[in-house]
């Protein structure tokens, strides 16, 4: 993330949502959390609707279901990495062990 090269300033990619639930609340939260880890400005576009990838409100408002094609764009130092990571999330869904916060899983299991 510390490579200061100019070619990383802008990145975009078309992605098809493969996640079974689409961008429902839980996947959307994970998506937004991930986006917030990047410095770049990131946006997601569905048809003519362009929203901020870091805003849960806006991402949920896209109501993007499985099969929707989204355009993911990022501008900033870590633009390319951001787009790649987010695209991966949309395409592959979030692996269950990665998406959950591990610390919480340590709590006692319900009977």
């Amino acid at each position, binding site marked *: 993330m510390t490579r200061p090269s100019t070619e990383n300033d802008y990145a975009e990619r078309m992605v098809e949502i493969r996640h079974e*639930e*689409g961008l*429902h*609340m*839980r996947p959307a*939260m994970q998506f*937004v*959390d991930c986006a917030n880890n990047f410095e770049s400005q990131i946006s997601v576009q569905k048809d003519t609707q362009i929203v*901020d990838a*870091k*805003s*849960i*409100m*806006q991402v*949920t*408002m896209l*109501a993007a*279901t499985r099969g929707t094609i989204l355009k993911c764009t990022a501008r900033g130092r870590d633009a390319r990495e951001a787009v790649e990571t987010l695209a991966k999330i949309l395409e592959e869904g979030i692996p269950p062990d990665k998406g959950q916060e591990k610390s*919480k899983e340590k*709590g*006692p299991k*319900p009977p």
Partner: protein
Amino acid sequence: MEIIKGIGVSPGVAICTAVVIDAEEYRVPRRSVPPGQIRKEVQRLRQALLDATREVTNLQITQADLWDSRIKDIFAVHLHFLRDRTLRGQIADLIKKEKFTAEYAVSVILRDVARHFSQTPDTYISERVSDIYDIERRLLRHLIGSRREDLEHLTEPVVVVAHDLTPTQTAAFDKKYINGIATNAGGRTSHTAIVARSLGIPAVVALNEATAKAAAGDTVIVDGDRGTFVVNPDVQTVKEYQRYADAFIEHEHELDELVHLPAVTKDGQKITLLGNIEFPYEAEIALQKGGEGVGLYRTEYLYLDADHEPTEEDHYQAYMETLRRLGHGQITIRTVDLGADKFTQQRRISPERNPFLGLRSIRYCLQNLPLFTRQIRAILRASVHGEVKILFPLVTNLMELRQAKWIVANIKEDLEEQGIEYDDGIPIGIMIETPAAALTADDLADEVDFFSIGTNDLIQYTLAVDRVNENVAWLYSPGHPAVLQLIKRIYQSAKRAKIDVTVCGEMASEIEYVPILLGLGLTTLSLAPPRIPEIKKVVRSVTMAQCRRLARKALSFDTDKQTINLIRSEMESILGKG
């Protein structure tokens, strides 16, 4: 001039300037602020977001291993929205651009989001609308809750006009300046009514449109006796009410003379009059008004009034202060009767569909043992400093009672081990406030030291009437034959088991019903302290023979109308003579 009819729930007359507050959480009026106040509104928004975030985070922590992951997700959704910079920016921009109040801006933006959600064909997303409303409500609670400052910093007398008042709001009342209360919602036994009576503030409720008719700064009249609310009265009307108000004060003074006289019927039956209180300072008022102690100490305020859950020490300090103010005399502490209110509902994901039949009172306590334990420990510790009794609310079966008693026994053992003093013989009683408890009172009586009849809930559950619902409130009647028969039965069970029985509902403070209660055999009444003199006057005006005859007749009637007519005519002649 406009006159609106409502229900008078606390006697007296107030003629004053109106302060209109928006306690209604779901409809925030469009209201703008002067340009100079915009920064303050943005600051209020920020604070509310901060408070709401902290609140949800706390809930998430305390319930981390209690609930399933779907529920954890909901907390997470709330947190994500509360932290959403775009959302926060939109609300702040609206405040700045349109000069809206923070609450109105929150409402506009979140409703917009909700509308957007609900129009989505994807049902999963459209169902998330309820989350958005929930977030809106949470923010509004913080914003409007903080509005009580308006009521805290009064410098002149006012009448408070509101949709309804929450315990948080009434707890902040400064009696010196609040001369009257008028609300759109409510009934005789709603929260506002109880608090108004206990503070001795004239109040009219169920006005439907009080907040629509009265604007801040209008002169208004609250007539708590006749249940009327007058907006912008003419000079003549003000004069009439002024005369009436003066006469009322005179009557009060007359009653004050009864304070030091015993509560004894004409034929010598001693009646014990106690006070129902919610705040420690009211113990003093109970004594001043001629009460002999506290028959019902409601402890919900410890929860509803504070921004944190009360600790054992908070409980203990409140009980000790009450005992101190009481000086002598008995005090019956009811364990928290929470449910369907701010405290429990904020801890829920979705409101209960039927909260009065839901997780409330003793049920809530038995499912939240750490909370229950803190209170019981505090009561036991206080029990060595006075004549303290424990009262469990809403017991509906023997198992609940046994479980609660078992918990008390366990805590006693803990205290014993820790070398902390308590009264081992502390009396334990239960509220009889459901038909189930009334009908099985024989069995329950064998396992408790006393009964307390909570007529408000007993009537509500027996007649299946929500006493706060204006549309059916008229069906709520203490004179209903079913209610009278249950009370008689409860008394007989108590008598058979030789245990004490107190009546602590509103019924015990109503002139018409007190003679019937006496006639049914009940000789201990616990009521709002300001009502004690009036009821003492009734007690001193009747004979037990009269009361027994009245009760017998009332029990033979098949409609409450007959009972009410009988009492009205009898009481007129009795009090006329007395």
